[in-house]
């Protein structure tokens, strides 16, 4: 990008835009109608993304992306709407120079630097330049302002020597011309100052020529020789002021009193075109796409650019309906009402007058074709014309001569002759005779719109207002293609050997291969400008040229018939008339012509430069249409637009708008975008020129927003966007939280369950304890009552008997025995009472819950044995091997006690033993053995059944689920073993 400041240069002439000699160049004006904020443009700048920044004299600054102007004013944050200059610093900040201060714009925010009101030199600032990291601003009256790192070091510092001119050289160096004729050249590393050794009559203006700095004064043009610190006069061919040297085209943009001129005087042949007249030009800029931008003071902005098309016909040749290029390079142009034209050697000849007499019918040209034999045929609304080159006249054929209809709409040739589509059927002409085909012969309709003969299929295709008929071997067949339903077929061409390229009126372009039935429909959804297609043709490189009422699309398909390139041409590209026509296109290898409503246009083949397109970029990421700043959720930003890098958005900031753009100042309307949001969209969007998309209600997750864009050739570009971002998961949806909640809920449920169970158990235990206490209380009460009542009563009986015996002994023989035997009776009563006493005591003992323990049982039995066996002097021993307390079920003590009392009594009475032992020990399988063993006479165990006492103890053993084993051996002794198991009880409804 090269930039030339052009001082106020008044050029007074008409503002007519002249067509340059180079026909493909064109000038386009942008005014307030197009969105420019003001028609006084002061400065221009192209940034890295390709945006053109346009400073105005009161309307603020505008950013142009090829389509629209985005305007920034004081309302947006500018210090002032008057712009004196624009400069982009090395950190991608835009510095906007006003007459009394500066504004810095970082793509998001504006920062104002306002000159102090009471500054001694309050006159305007006029020049801004950057040296290294520092920005300098020159004001009139020798004042300079220095800004570094957003800090103003001084405002309007006075400098000793007045600066007359400032110029930025080709390498970025700043060149000053001071009042004392000193030149000062400042670079980032050094400054050179010198006074030329020759006398100079001032400096009018500087300009860059290749890598030289030149200046002009009234003596001519001089070169600054900084190495030798001198100025050198340079031979020069023009007297005009050089505004800008276009190194690429080797053109000088110059100005004189007549206007803005494009000159080439470096070659031998001097060439000069006046581009603008009567316009005050303030700056000329060539952008990276080859467009020349001209800022004017009052006439807005002009774009001077190479066009893709140029109109080659005179202005009165309009409504081009048919075109053919003759074998001798003559161009034949048929118009709607203005008849047939012949263009040859730059001259246009009209046949309008010759054909006028036929009610103008023959001046309505439908088609022009040159036969394989070189004959030129013209189809008109009133007959078919055959051109005679020798006489420059036409021979006419009418229905009377054999044509099916007077209006010939299309002409086609096959190996045998010529086919004519008319308003009343199809005609075949072999040069001699005409043969007609109508609905009677199988045509679906008599009004023929288009014809195409496929040499590979040897088949003629006939297009009508509703379908295609295929003619082969004398028969018509309907070609069924669903995509063609209810549309007229305006043109047909062969695409890649056998496929038909069909232009439809409403269904876009249809490609259909009759051999394979493969088909493809291309509509506006695929990127066509319109679905109403006038023509569709194929060029030598298999590019499809598709004309509609909205211009021309140039499309390239891959082998799968998918679009790989798609360029759209309209008035932006030189097709001023925009609307194309059915039979007016010619696709030669070297020349391509298109007939439009306003004339014939030639395509610019030579234009194909390989300019690198600007890259696709995001221009904004907005949350809820900008209500919240997306930058708050990112650590850093990137690019001019300060896009947040990998933002992590809260779950409720999930309404996101992406603005993206690829600046194209040449084919702005051809730029198409496709986008896809990874992790959300299933497939890429349809191509669209809309450069913004909004996603709302995005669920939490990681996303990547992707965009693809077409390049300046219309193909999907390598320049892509992949923009990752994250919508955070709300804390209540995080895995850890859910897991935590799950655990918590599980824990609470378990706890509740546990507490309920525990409560039930506790309650059951309390109930059990109460029950036990009550039971124990009852048992104790019973025991006490028995103790008191039974005990006393029995004591009385025994005492009474004792007294009776005492009284009886008075009459006895002194040894205690009554004479009459009543003493024995007393003894029996006493024994019974004692027995009852003992039994009661046992019962009372066993009913006391304190005694429900194995060791107490053992001691009780032992105490009984101790007393009993002492009477007879039998040695009684007791052995307890179970030391720990073992709880016994209620009732067990009583039964066990009675068993062993019976056993001991038996041993006492009958065994004649000397030694008796009582043993408690553990048996097998957690059982216990309580046994009584004596060394007495023993007995025959077979008699047990007969012994009531032993039977009783067996029954008692059964009651307490114990096993009683009796071993007895004659003269060895007897052993009685009670084996019992104290099983765990089932309590409280829960197993323990």
């Amino acid at each position: 990008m090269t930039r030339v400041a052009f001082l106020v240069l008044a050029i007074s002439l008409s503002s007519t835009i002249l067509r340059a000699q180079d026909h493909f160049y064109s000038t386009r004006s942008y005014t307030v109608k197009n969105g420019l904020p003001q028609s006084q443009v002061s400065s221009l700048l192209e940034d890295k993304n390709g945006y053109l920044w346009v400073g105005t004299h009161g309307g603020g600054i505008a950013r142009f992306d090829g389509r629209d102007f985005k305007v920034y004013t004081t309302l947006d944050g500018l210090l002032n709407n008057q712009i004196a200059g624009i400069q982009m610093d090395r950190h991608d900040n835009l510095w906007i120079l006003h007459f009394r201060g500066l504004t810095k714009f970082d793509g998001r925010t504006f920062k104002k630097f306002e000159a102090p009101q009471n500054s001694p030199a309050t006159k305007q600032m006029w020049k801004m330049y950057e040296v290294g990291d520092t920005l300098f601003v020159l004001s009139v009256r020798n004042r300079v302002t220095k800004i570094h790192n957003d800090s103003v070091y001084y405002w309007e510092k006075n400098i000793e020597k007045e600066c007359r001119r400032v110029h930025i050289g080709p390498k970025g160096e700043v060149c000053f011309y001071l009042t004392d004729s000193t030149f000062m050249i400042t670079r980032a590393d050094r400054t050179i100052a010198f006074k030329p050794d020759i006398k100079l009559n001032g400096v009018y203006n500087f300009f860059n020529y290749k890598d030289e700095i030149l200046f002009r004064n009234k003596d001519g043009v001089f070169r600054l020789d900084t190495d030798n610190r001198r100025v050198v006069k340079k031979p020069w061919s023009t007297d005009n002021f050089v505004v800008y040297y276009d190194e690429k085209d080797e053109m000088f943009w110059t100005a004189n009193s007549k206007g803005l001129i494009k000159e080439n005087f470096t070659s031998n042949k001097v060439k000069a075109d006046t581009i603008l007249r009567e316009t005050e030009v303030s700056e000329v800029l060539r952008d990276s796409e080859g467009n020349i931008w001209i800022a004017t003071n009052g006439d807005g902005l002009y774009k001077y650019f190479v066009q893709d098309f140029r109109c080659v016909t005179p202005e009165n040749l309009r409504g081009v309906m048919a075109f053919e290029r003759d074998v001798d390079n003559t161009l034949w142009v048929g118009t709607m009402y203005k008849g047939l034209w012949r263009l040859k050697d730059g001259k246009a000849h009209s046949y309008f007058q010759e054909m006028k007499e036929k009610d103008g019918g023959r001046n309505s040209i439908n088609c022009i074709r040159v036969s394989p034999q070189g004959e030129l045929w013209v189809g008109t609304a009133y007959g078919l014309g055959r051109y005679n080159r020798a006489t420059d006249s036409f021979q006419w054929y009418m229905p009377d001569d054999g044509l099916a209809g007077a209006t010939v709409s299309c002409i086609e040739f096959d190996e045998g002759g010529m086919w004519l589509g008319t308003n009343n059927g199809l005609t075949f002409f072999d040069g001699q005779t005409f043969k007609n085909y109508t609905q009677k012969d199988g045509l679906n309709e008599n009004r023929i719109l288009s014809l195409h003969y496929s040499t590979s299929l040897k088949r003629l295709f006939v297009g009508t207002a509703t379908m295609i008929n295929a003619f082969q071997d004398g028969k018509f067949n309907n070609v069924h293609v669903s995509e063609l339903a209810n549309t007229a077929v305006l043109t047909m061409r062969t695409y890649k050997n056998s496929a038909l390229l069909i232009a439809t009126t409403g269904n876009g372009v249809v490609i259909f291969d009759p051999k394979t039935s493969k088909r493809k429909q291309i509509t506006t959804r695929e990127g066509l400008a319109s679905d109403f297609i006038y023509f569709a043709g194929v060029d030598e490189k298999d590019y499809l040229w598709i004309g509609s009422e909205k211009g021309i699309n140039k499309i390239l398909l891959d082998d799968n018939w998918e679009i790989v390139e798609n360029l759209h041409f309209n008035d932006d590209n030189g097709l001023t008339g925009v609307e194309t026509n059915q039979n007016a296109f010619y696709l030669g290898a070297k020349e391509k012509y298109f007939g439009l409503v306003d004339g014939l246009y030639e395509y610019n083949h030579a234009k194909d430069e390989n300019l690198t397109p600007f890259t696709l970029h995001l221009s904004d990421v907005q949350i809820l249409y900008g209500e919240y700043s997306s930058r708050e959720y990112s650590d850093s930003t990137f690019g001019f637009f300060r896009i947040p890098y990998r933002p992590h958005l809260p779950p409720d900031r999930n309404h996101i708008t992406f603005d993206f753009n690829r600046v194209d100042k040449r084919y702005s309307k051809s730029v198409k975008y496709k986008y896809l949001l990874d992790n959300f969209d299933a497939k890429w969007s349809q191509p669209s020129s809309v450069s913004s998309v909004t996603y709302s209600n995005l669920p939490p997750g990681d996303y990547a927003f992707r965009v693809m864009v077409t390049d300046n050739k219309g193909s999907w570009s390598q320049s892509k966007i992949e923009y990752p971002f994250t919508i955070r998961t709300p804390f209540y949806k995080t895995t850890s939280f859910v897991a935590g909640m799950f655990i918590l809920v599980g824990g609470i449920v378990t706890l509740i369950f546990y507490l309920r169970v525990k409560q039930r158990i506790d309650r059951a235990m309390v109930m059990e304890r109460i029950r036990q206490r009550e039971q124990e209380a009852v048992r104790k009460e019973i025991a006490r009552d028995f103790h008191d009542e039974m005990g006393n009563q029995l004591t009385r009986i025994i005492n009474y008997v004792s007294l009776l015996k005492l009284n009886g002994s008075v009459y006895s023989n002194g040894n205690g025995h009554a004479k009459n035997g009543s003493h024995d009776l007393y003894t029996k009563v006493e024994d019974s009472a004692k027995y009852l006493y003992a039994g009661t005591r046992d019962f009372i003992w066993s009913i006391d819950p304190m005694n429900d323990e194995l060791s107490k049982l053992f001691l009780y039995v032992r105490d009984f044995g101790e007393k009993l066996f002492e009477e007879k002097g039998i040695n009684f021993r007791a052995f307890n091997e179970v030391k720990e307390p073992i709880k016994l079920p209620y009732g067990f003590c009583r039964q066990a006690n009675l068993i062993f009392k019976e056993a001991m009594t038996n041993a006492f009475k009958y065994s004649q033993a000397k030694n008796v032992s009582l043993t408690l020990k553990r048996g097998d399988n957690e059982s216990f053995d309580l046994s009584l063993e004596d060394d007495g006479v023993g007995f025959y165990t077979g008699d047990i059944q007969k012994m009531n006492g032993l039977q009783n103890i067996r029954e008692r053993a059964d009651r307490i689920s114990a096993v009683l084993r009796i071993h007895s051996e004659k003269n060895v002794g007897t052993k009685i073993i009670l084996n019992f198991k104290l099983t765990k009880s089932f309590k409280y409804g829960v197993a323990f």
Partner: protein
Amino acid sequence: MALPFKKRVMIVEDDQEIRNSFSLIVNSSQKFTVVNAVGSCEDAISLLNRDKPEIVLMDIELPGMNGIQGTKIIKDKSPHTDIIMVTVYEDSELVFEALKAGASGYITKSANYMELLSALEEIVKGGAPMSSRIARMVIDNFHVNPNSPLTKRETEILQLISEGKTYTQISEELFISKETAKTHIKNIYSKLQVNSKSEAIAKANLEKLI
């Protein structure tokens, strides 16, 4: 008519029939004479100085002051009086409490006149047979006391009784006669009476240690 060499016996029993029959049985002996038979401890205590009994047959369950409280007061007032508890069954906790209160032994109510008199004699001479439960209570009582008044032998005997050993086994293990064992038991009974004093000493010692 009481002979001077007969032991003076007082009967404390609320059941008049039993009281009368006990009086008749005791009086039938040449060695004992009933100096008074009363229905409550209060009466017994009030007559203590007048009747000066050498032996008191004391029922445990009595209206008003029970036999254990009565035993304590009688022993305080007349330390040389032997008090014999009369109980329905002998291994009751009340028996032990009475022994602690100063009783010299106990007899069961089931004894006939022969047994009653011989038991009286035996108790005067030595102690009543000790049940395992009483033995265990005695051990527990003295176990907490570091300055136990029991001799080593007495402690051994008590331990064996509490473990369920018979007198036969004790005499075999300790190489003593059954009678000796019983004498030891008499001593143990009498030592139970010093229990409160020794406890006080133990407590004092313990506090001193602290």
